[in-house]
Every structure is written in structure tokens, then in C-alpha cells.
């Protein structure tokens, strides 16, 4: 089975080469058009485009922060509750995860719009008199992205808390530690791996986000993926789109490689 064992992998590899590796490498090659680095100089030199990169990083960092803030309690609760409640919790996390991003984006437009559910409710209740701008801006993009990416944080945290030996917690309780102390001194340090794994996934996925900023940003929040799409579809500037893609890809891999150096070889469950 040792030599022949490679054969079953071959058809999948052919597909991956033909429709993934080759097209991506070929396109990235466009960025070096004429053997110069001019397109990279434009992408990383001009203030307009630098700001897009900076925006993307800022949004990705904030999204990761909020996903952590909301995802840790959820994963923690699911891992420490009864099996029945854990199942219910899973359904509420997985149903949104597998629902089309478009459905969710549309729903947020309905909820956050000028005449949306939130603004209507607040105005009718007399709390505000003018609608708060929640859509087609930074806030809208943040809400939409955190919603899409939250499950990717919850699941690794859940796995990490589940792997923790309950005897340690029982011992601490037996010795009279308060629940806050148990959390800070036991749960948090021993689940850092899960937190880290979730944060890396969320951050990396945020960097390449397209649909949510394109629809909820209303043209005012330009992330790098949106810029790449514009360059290809509107200005047909392939070399520049390729250079932007190369930078995005390099950033993605760099974050990933860095993360792998800091975690043990144990795979992120």
C-alpha cells in the first residue's frame, strides 16, 4: 500500500492543480508584468491603497476582538452545560453558520436600515427622534462580519474547554477557590490554545472578506477584497489586481505561519 497509496489522491490533485494552484500562480504572475515591481510600488506606496490595507487590518482586528468577546462565553457555556442544552446551543450556532451569507446580509439590512426594525422600534418607543445610521458604514460591516465569523470562534473554544480535565476544576473547588478565581487561574490559561486557534481563523478569514463589506459597507467601507473585485471588473486592471492579491495572500500566509510557530503541533480541533 506504500507506493500505490498515492494513486487514489491523484484525481483530486489534478483538479487542485488545474483549477486552484495553476490559475492562482498564473494570475499572481501578472503582477510582475514587464519584469518590474511598479504595481507593488503602487499598491504599497500610494496613500489611497495603503489606507485600504490599513482599514482591512483594523476591521479584521476588531472583528477578532468582538468574536472573542462574544464567542468565549458561548463556547464555555456549551462545554460546561448538560448534553441537552449543549445540543440546543450547537443548533443555534450551526444554523447561522450554514445559512447563506446573503440571507444573513439581507436580514441585517432589514434590521439596521434607516427604516429598519431597530430604528423603527426605537423611534416608536420615543427613545430617539432621528434614525441612527447603522447601515452602509463601519458599524454595519462590523455587525455583519462578527455575525458571520462568530461560530468559527465558538467551536474551537468549545473544544478547548471540553478537553480540559474536570478533575483540575474539582480540585480547585474542593480547595475553596471562587468561581472567578477558577476561571482566571484554570480555565483561561488552559484554554488559551483554543482561543488562539479561533482568533487566527477569524482574523485570516476577515482579511479576505468580500460579500459583507460590499453589501453592508455601501461603498464607504473599502476592504482589500472589494478593491480587487473593482480592479478586475470595473477597471480591468489585471496586473494591479494581481499585485493586491499577492499582498493579501502574503499577509494571510504570514499570519498563519506565525500562528503555527506559536502553537504546539496539536491541530486546532
Amino acid at each position: 500500500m506504500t507506493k500505490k497509496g498515492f494513486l487514489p489522491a491523484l484525481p483530486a490533485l489534478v483538479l487542485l492543480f488545474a483549477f486552484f494552484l495553476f490559475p492562482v500562480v498564473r494570475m499572481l504572475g501578472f503582477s510582475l508584468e514587464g519584469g518590474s515591481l511598479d504595481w507593488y510600488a503602487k499598491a504599497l506606496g500610494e496613500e489611497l491603497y495603503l489606507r485600504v490595507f490599513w482599514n482591512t487590518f483594523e476591521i479584521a482586528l476588531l472583528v477578532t476582538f468582538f468574536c472573542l468577546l462574544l464567542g468565549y462565553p458561548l463556547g464555555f457555556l456549551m462545554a460546561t452545560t448538560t448534553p441537552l442544552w449543549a445540543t440546543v446551543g450547537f443548533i443555534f450556532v450551526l444554523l447561522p453558520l450554514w445559512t447563506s451569507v446573503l440571507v444573513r446580509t439581507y436580514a441585517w439590512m432589514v434590521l439596521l436600515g434607516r427604516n429598519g426594525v431597530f430604528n423603527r422600534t426605537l423611534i416608536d418607543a420615543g427613545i430617539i427622534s432621528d434614525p441612527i445610521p447603522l447601515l452602509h458604514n463601519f458599524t454595519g460591516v462590523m455587525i455583519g462580519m462578527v455575525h458571520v465569523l462568530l461560530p468559527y470562534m465558538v467551536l474551537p473554544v468549545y473544544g478547548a474547554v471540553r478537553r480540559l480535565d474536570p478533575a483540575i476544576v474539582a480540585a480547585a473547588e474542593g480547595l475553596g477557590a471562587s468561581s472567578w478565581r477558577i476561571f482566571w487561574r484554570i480555565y483561561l490559561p488552559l484554554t488559551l490554545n483554543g482561543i488562539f486557534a479561533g482568533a487566527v481563523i477569524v482574523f485570516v478569514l476577515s482579511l479576505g472578506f468580500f460579500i459583507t463589506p460590499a453589501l453592508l459597507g455601501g461603498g464607504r467601507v473599502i476592504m482589500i477584497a472589494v478593491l480587487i473585485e473593482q480592479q478586475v471588473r470595473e477597471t480591468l486592471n489585471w496586473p494591479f489586481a494581481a499585485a493586491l492579491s499577492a499582498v493579501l495572500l502574503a499577509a494571510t500566509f504570514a499570519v498563519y505561519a506565525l500562528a503555527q510557530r506559536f502553537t504546539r503541533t496539536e491541530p486546532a480541533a
Partner: protein
Amino acid sequence: MSRRLLVLACGLIYLFLMLPLLVVFPISLSSAPYMQFPPPGFSWQWYERYLDDPQWIDATWRSLYIGVSTAALALALGVPLAFSLVRAKFFGRVLVERLALAPVIVPTIILSVAVYGIFAKLKLIGAWYGLVLAHTVLALPFVVLVMVAGLRDFDRALEQAAEGLGASRWRTLTRITLPLLRPSLVSAGLLAFISSFDEVVVALFLAGANMTLPKKMFDNILMEIDPTIAAVSVIQILLVSLVLILIGRFGRGLSGSAR
């Protein structure tokens, strides 16, 4: 005390997660001619409009058969690949695994633009099988992850017993190995289907004039917020719920499959 606080906070977070899914139900049943909340009355008009519009129905059928074809192709390629990764030792095994999982990490916009460049040359824009090929690249990681997990837990003594009793390699595979892996196969296939059925970014570039359901939704959301989308959304949410129920009933560990 602090536990109660945690439960309360999590209740709010669950509300945040579920609210967008819940809000489309009342809107899809609204009698108002445009988006209005709360709905002034009840009507089926948006569902009727969806069912009566050949464009929507066309897009739905196209997404369905592209999704089914993607699931079939992803299983046909991904299952043997998972067998190789778990059971064989060959040079570059780790590299092959990384390559198969890479489509999750590489931003979809890059894949879309790159494949668009190739397909434009090959005149494959708008061809349904072109979308199937690109969607299979994206679905392959799900199949590989689920199948690798399934194969790692597999008790090989059962295969050895069958072979010891004189069963051929092929007979062992079809009568013992694959039936025992059925839960993993079900999960992998359904996840591959859903990943294609919901996919927008690749479809935006490759579908051309032949709309898939997500592409049609994207265009409609850009143009105007018409409650027909709410009706379509409800149908999609129900379909995903059905798939998740099927995975829960016949598939292998939901939590594992979502990694």
C-alpha cells in the same frame, strides 16, 4: 451567581446569532408592498411572486443541480484522497494535505478572480460545469476534513477479519469499509452540497448570465430590497435546517464536521 450572569449574557449572544434568521419569517409573510416592519397584515404574495418568476425558479434549479454535482464530484475525488492521506505513506503527504485544505485559507476572491482569468480564455464563463469544478475546489476541504476524521476512528480489525475470511480487497471496501463510513460520507456530501448551494463570490465571476440562486439574490439586494428575497431566504433557511437535521440523524458529529 456568576453562572447566572453567564447564562444571561449567552442568551443575548444567541439572540444576536438567531435574530437575522428569525426576522425574515414575518417579513416574507407581509402584505405590505415594500419592506415594512412590523408587517401590517398577512399574505403569501412574496412566495407567489417567487414561484411565478421563471428567473427565480431557473436560478433555484441551477443552484440545486450545481450543488448536487459538486457534492458528487467532491466525494468522488475527496474520499480516495482522504484514504491516501490517512492510510498511505508517501513523499509529500503533508504538502498534499495542506494543498487540499488551502482553499479554506486562501481568500475566495483570489480564487474567483484567478479562475475567472482562465475560464474567460477557455470560454467557460456561464457554463454550469465550470462552476461545478470551481465549487468542488472549495468543497474538497470539507470532504477531506470529515473523511480523515472518520477514517482515523475506523477499526481496521474489521477489514482484516473480512480479508482473513477470504473477501477480496474490493469486496471488503464495498461491503465493510464504506458502509461503516456511511455517517461520515453523509456529512461530507451534505456539507459539500450546502457549501456550493450557498456560494456567491465564485458565482459572481463565473456564472455569467446564467444566474445561480445566490447570484440572483446578490443582484436583487444591490438593486432594491424587495421582500421576495425574504421569501427566498426563508426557503433557504428551511433547506439548511433540513440538511442539518439529516446530518444529525444520519451523519457523523455535527461539531466535528464544522471543525
